[in-house]
């Protein structure tokens, strides 16, 4: 099976972070899982990778409802960097919200590859990694 380097998960629910790491490890698709509980720190770290031309995570799972800043503000700040640098990454919303307003809003961002409703199973992780490889190889 083909693996990718890094999946990055941004969510202020620490139990979800612990669980998704297990799920990603079990699916065996990624060499590393980077977890961010604080979206502001995540922003700084991802911007730094782009500016220093480091290895950007191939897949990002992003929560919407977070303290400090929400997922939308996060994207509004990060996306200009991603687009300007032409960074290859697949961003997915990972939320427990099934509200239509959130799903519709996700559709207004061309950079968002999909909307995952929690709980997220390892099959889903396999599916999105395959998608990433189809698009980028």
């Amino acid at each position, binding site marked *: 099976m083909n693996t990718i380097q890094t999946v990055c998960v941004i969510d202020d629910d620490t*139990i979800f972070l612990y*669980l998704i790491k*297990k799920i990603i490890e*079990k699916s065996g698709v990624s060499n590393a899982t980077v977890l961010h509980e604080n979206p502001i720190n995540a922003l700084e770290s991802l911007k730094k990778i782009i500016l220093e031309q480091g290895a950007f995570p191939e897949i990002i799972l992003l929560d919407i409802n977070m*303290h400090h800043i929400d997922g939308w503000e996060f994207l509004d700040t990060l996306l200009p960097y991603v687009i300007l640098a032409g960074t290859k990454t697949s961003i997915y919303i990972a939320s427990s919200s099934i509200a239509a307003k959130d799903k519709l809003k996700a559709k207004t961002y061309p950079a968002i590859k999909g909307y995952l409703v*929690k709980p*997220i199973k390892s099959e889903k992780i396999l599916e999105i990694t395959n998608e990433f490889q189809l698009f980028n190889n």
Partner: protein
Amino acid sequence: MNTSNDSLEERLNNSLKLVTEQNKRLINFSYIVSHNLRSHTSNIKTIIDLLQVTNDQTERLELLTHLKTVSDSLDNTLHNLNEVVAIQTVKVLNIETINVFNYIEKEIAVLSKEIELKKASIINKVSNDVLINYNPAYFESIIFNFLSNAIKYSSSERQPVIILEIEFIQNRTVLSISDNGLGIDLEKNADKLFGLNKTFHGNKDAKGIGLFISKNQIEAMDGKIEVESTLNIGTTFKIHL
């Protein structure tokens, strides 16, 4: 003829405003029920799935510890939501004559640990002869929520000072609570301030729910709340009792 038409229109407009407001609150409430309950249940589902395929004892123990935390958070969320529902459904409220000064002093005593920890100074400027007719439980909870909020979001750069005052505006008693804390960017966060947009999982921070409950209680007593705030200067809440 004209005057009666005007007042009819005014009444219609008021009803429309009321219904719109109630509708907004209901949508907000169902959103939070959906989101907050689902965030817990989806964690529970994943934990159970993992427990079924994991034999490693250390990992199983870790998962069980997390299950306990999620179950506590779920319980806490349900408790909070119940409280909100209770405010919306109680039709006849128990009203008593309350001495505002004494109630504030009581809540200051309840919060003494937090006050000491932040070395905050709480100045109760309300004169001790101000009496209001109010639901005692609501008033306690309102004072507690605004005080604890002001303490929690105080600035580490200066000694927290919180001032409580009464003014009378158009026959209405208005309690103002001013702090010199972090302040809120109202342009960006006005709708989030009293809404239930933020999650409150993990018990570590019940941000959002307290002010949401207070706002509902104030409105259930036919009052309203106003807020003025400047980032890094402070916030003033005016509660029309």
